[in-house]
């Protein structure tokens, strides 16, 4: 059996999450092939050819210069039918989420998303994935004929644990052409909203608030704590969705990724979309009334309690010292 990893690149730059997916695929112990899809992506192919793998396959077509769901489904369904891999691995990025379910549906194959661990059970694989916003984990099995498609959660595998080969792997071109007339999406150039006022990635300390803060007027409790710590205030997505804090204060997959010395999570349950943006923090403190909240899976120090009592006590303690 062979495993095919679909590398992710945009504008000729490799997405680092690809290395995490390579690391995951290597753990299966099966022969690894890596596909690079796009136009003018030789540099990306050369970069991933450093991985310990059988070979790198490039699907190059002018119709794939800009990412589109239709273009990638056409290219990858043809590639998978041609190569007949036993398993297909992809990073669980927004781009993968945009096309992988359609790819699996077109191929009539199972897709297991957001996988954090894989183990062999007899002649099949068992995949671990979060459910219920990360409050539970599930062991799942995929059914139907191979290849099953698997997306690997960002941060679940270490990019630097991907094994490098003794020499670069061979790079080949796949004989696949994409009919541009069948691509229905017309993308414009990616852009950022008005320049971000705060760069939270540089903050040494962050106090972040989540749904547990309950009301906008309660934000002042978090602000007092941030002031006492000398920290920036940040938030999980629902707080920014509600307009209680500006979007540029959002931590998580759709916001900023941070790794401060100190991260204090107030009333944040710890959905995976939030955790990926902060779990690299050096010291994590979680204050939450729910002892089973997933935030406690990554916290160094936890206080299970009412943040409206605990936070003023911490502020008093800091001001007393």
């Amino acid at each position: 059996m062979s495993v095919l990893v679909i590398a992710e690149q945009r504008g000729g730059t490799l997405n680092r999450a690809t290395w995490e997916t390579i690391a995951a695929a290597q753990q299966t112990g099966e022969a690894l092939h890596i596909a690079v899809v796009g136009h003018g992506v030789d540099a990306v192919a050369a970069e991933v050819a450093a991985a310990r793998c059988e070979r790198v396959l490039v699907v190059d077509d002018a119709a794939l210069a800009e990412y589109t769901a239709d273009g990638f489904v056409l290219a990858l369904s043809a590639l998978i039918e041609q190569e007949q891999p036993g398993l297909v691995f992809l990073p669980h990025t927004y781009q993968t989420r945009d096309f992988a379910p359609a790819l699996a549906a077109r191929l009539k194959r199972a897709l297991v998303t957001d996988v954090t661990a894989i183990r062999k059970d007899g002649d099949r694989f068992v995949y671990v994935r979060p459910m219920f916003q990360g409050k539970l984990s599930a062991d799942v099995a995929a059914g139907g004929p191979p290849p099953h498609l698997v997306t690997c959660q960002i941060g679940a595998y270490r990019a630097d644990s991907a094994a490098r080969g003794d020499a670069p792997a061979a790079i080949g071109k796949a004989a696949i052409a994409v009919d541009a007339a069948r691509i229905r999406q017309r993308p414009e150039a990616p852009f950022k909203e008005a320049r971000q006022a705060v760069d939270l990635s540089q903050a040494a300390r962050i106090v972040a608030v989540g749904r547990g803060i309950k009301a906008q007027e309660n934000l002042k409790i978090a602000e007092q704590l941030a002031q006492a710590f000398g920290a920036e205030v940040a938030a999980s997505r629902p707080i920014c969705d509600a307009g209680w804090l500006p979007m540029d204060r959002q931590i998580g997959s759709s916001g900023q990724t941070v790794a401060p010395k100190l991260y204090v999570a107030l009333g944040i349950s710890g959905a995976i979309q939030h955790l990926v943006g902060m779990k690299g923090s050096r010291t994590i403190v979680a204050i939450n009334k729910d002892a089973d909240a997933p935030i406690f899976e990554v916290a160094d120090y936890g206080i299970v309690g009412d943040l409206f009592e605990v936070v003023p006590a911490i502020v008093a303690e800091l001001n007393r010292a």
Partner: protein
Amino acid sequence: MKIAVCIKQVVTREWQLRVNDQKTWIRDADASFELNEPDAYALEEALRLKEKQGGEVVVCCAGPARAAQVIREALARGADRAIHVESDALAAADAATIAAALAAAIKDEAFDLVLTGLQSDDQGFGQVGVVLAETLGMPHATIIMEVQVQDGALRVKRELEGGWFQWIALPMPALLTIQSGINQLRYATLKGIMAAKKKEIRKASVPSLGEPVQQILSLYLPQKAKQTQLLTGSAADAARQLIAKLRDEARVLQ
């Protein structure tokens, strides 16, 4: 414009999850349920599009009988009618099964636009919308933060990672998966609740469900990545311990 909104009923965030004896699903017999949050944003977006463009908003749900609760709620918020593919087997079904059930129920309705939330708060596959698009032969775009209708076509703002966005143009009919926060939600008025009682809920038959392609072998509490030190006692006690730990052990305070 004829718009379908696919919705799912999920357990409320506050409900304490407990796993059943077989460890294959949660003990949801006594759970409280709500409309999946991203689907609520999809519904709101559909209602706003209808207010601008005219037309009809139809909510579609593939779920057990109890899902009538969220269907009624969607009708009370302003949807015109509903289609319910009703089967207890759909409560914990995989994405392919739910998408197949929805596709069978809506394929003959000739919708101009189909909206779904980007993922569900329970199983969180993030697949149903995109699989449904493929099944219906529609183009799609995901994680959408703005929808513009121009000359019978769509221009939508897609969220990328790390604060990036991208506009995508696509023809209709099309399917979009909607990101939370795209709009401000409305809530049902008393008038809406009364009006909902007279609105049609069509029961659609369940297509023969194929073998599930994804099976839950075991559900359990996640393993901790770190050994968390839980600080206990009164709020003042916990605060005192925390500051001492941060200063002397973690050394993140001066």
